[in-house]
């Protein structure tokens, strides 16, 4: 490779949504930027749940998003509690809505990388960044397996695994298991027509379903009563994405393998019907950093900024991550441009990145949700076991014409509710709910 591309204006590590957004932003002002990724094909190292959001995409790709090779628009959302036999759910369905798109990472990342290349980004695939080059405490470039690249500013956008950050002293401690959700997913093949019939979707791809399930009190998972876990399902064109996430500390404590959880979920009477006759074609795993607001690495230092998952920008409660990644990448790119303009790459100058983040929804949302995951995790038994069962009891009264007077049953339900549940636990649940509600209302 020629010398010119080894000396550039800006280096971006990682071609996920955050890195691509950063690189495009820099290239659009005519600056020389390289985007390095370890994968041979864009997206071939990446997995996620399944949907990207229009607003963030529009901000970067404008009208181009009409050409995005998505599979379905996701506009039918369900939140559900699984009990041992059934499910209680709330749905919101608006077939006219088109804010979320189901698309595989391979297709999404390839599409974005192609646009980036057209806009002048120099994309370098099949290249692993092994370390940062640091001189006088400034990041001045990067080392790959074969060579070195130099730039006055580097943007680290290489996802949730934090090795590079540790090396650069941007992260003192590694992620702790309690702040990490381990997720796995299976891509389940089923013919298009059957998916449409089963989930009541239109043929033209303008409708699609996303389901989130709480609850762990079924099958062999009954023996664990404190698992903080979530199951997700997305409908694609001729596949269904089914995955589970569980707090890593909970898995460790219970000596539990996450695939065991997924297999139990697949056997649940309700889920098993949804995935009937499907064939598993891919299995993938990833971690989600959930430390959020309190567990961010240093976001800037001399000559370097951190964006996307690497910075812990993710909202696990709502499955939002790609939007945080795209916008944080864009803001890092803008800050890099300012720095290039002023020829000042000091930490002071790059602190403008943090100022930009503070003004955006990213810091505001991270702040609003700063306690939520932790609070929910502490009440894992309530969310995964106790309330799903209470809901079941309640609906058995409503739906079971069992020749006992309803009023008598309601009274029994209420007295049981208070008797069975230790008052302290009830109080803690109420406190948790109140704290979450207050945080939402009085967040930023």
């Amino acid at each position, binding site marked *: 490779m020629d010398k010119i591309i080894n000396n550039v204006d800006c280096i971006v590590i990682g071609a996920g949504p955050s890195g691509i957004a950063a690189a495009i932003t820099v290239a659009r002002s005519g600056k020389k930027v390289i985007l390095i990724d370890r994968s041979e094909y864009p997206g071939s190292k990446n*997995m996620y749940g399944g949907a990207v959001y229009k607003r963030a995409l529009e901000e970067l790709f404008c009208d181009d998003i009409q050409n995005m090779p998505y599979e379905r628009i996701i506009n039918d959302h369900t939140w559900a509690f699984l009990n041992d036999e059934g499910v209680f759910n709330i749905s919101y369905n608006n077939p006219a809505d088109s804010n979320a798109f189901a698309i595989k990472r391979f297709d999404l990342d390839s599409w974005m990388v192609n646009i980036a290349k057209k806009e002048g980004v120099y994309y370098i695939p099949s290249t692993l960044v092994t370390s940062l080059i640091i001189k006088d405490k400034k990041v001045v470039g990067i080392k790959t397996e074969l060579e070195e690249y130099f730039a006055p500013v580097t943007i680290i956008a290489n996802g949730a695994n934090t090795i590079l950050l540790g090396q650069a002293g941007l992260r003192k401690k590694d992620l702790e298991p309690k702040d990490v959700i381990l997720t796995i997913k299976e891509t389940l093949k089923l013919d298009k027509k059957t998916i449409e019939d089963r989930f009541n979707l239109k043929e033209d791809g303008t409708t699609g379903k996303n389901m989130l399930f709480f609850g762990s009190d079924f099958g062999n998972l009954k023996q664990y009563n404190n698992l903080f876990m979530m199951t997700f399902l997305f409908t694609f064109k001729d596949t269904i*994405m089914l995955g589970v996430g569980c707090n890593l500390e909970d898995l460790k404590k219970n000596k539990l393998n*996450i695939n065991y959880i997924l297999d139990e979920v697949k056997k649940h009477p309700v889920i098993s019907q949804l995935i009937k006759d499907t064939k*598993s074609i*891919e299995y993938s795993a990833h971690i989600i950093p959930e430390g959020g607001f309190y567990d961010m690495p240093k976001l800037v230092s001399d000559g370097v900024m951190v964006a996307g998952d690497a910075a812990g920008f993710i909202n696990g409660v709502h499955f939002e991550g790609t939007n945080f990644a795209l916008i944080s990448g864009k803001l890092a790119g803008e800050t890099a441009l300012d720095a290039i303009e002023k020829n000042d790459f000091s930490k002071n100058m790059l602190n403008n990145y943090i100022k930009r983040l503070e003004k955006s929804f990213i810091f505001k949302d991270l702040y609003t949700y700063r306690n939520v995951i932790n609070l929910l995790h502490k009440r894992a038994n309530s969310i995964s076991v106790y309330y799903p069962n209470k809901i079941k009891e309640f609906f058995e009264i409503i739906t079971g014409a069992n020749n006992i007077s309803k009023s008598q049953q309601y009274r029994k339900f209420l007295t049981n509710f208070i008797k069975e549940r230790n008052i302290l636990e009830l109080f803690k649940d109420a406190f948790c709910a109140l704290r979450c509600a207050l945080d939402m209302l009085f967040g930023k």
Partner: protein
Amino acid sequence: MRLRYAFWEIITMNDDKNKKSIQDKLANIKYNCDSKSHLILDQEKCKNCKEKTCTFICPANVYEYNEQLDEITVVYENCLECGACKLVCEKKSIEWHWPKASCGVVFKNS
């Protein structure tokens, strides 16, 4: 005593089933295998590790305890590159690297 034995039996049975299930799922994945492991263990630390957390946490069942050798075998070829093992190993025995560029797992449908 009998009861405890039965309980243990169930656990190992589930464990074997789970391993088989993982094997089946891994069979669908495309890998470009490297000739060298990207996961390096300090086997001395592992000898003193009671929990052997890596052997049950990994979603690809990469680590297995070999009782005869008192060693952990590492089937790095199956790694899904999630990074969980490094985070749960309390003895910090795992030196975790990315696989060489273009090596390792290749996802097309995720």
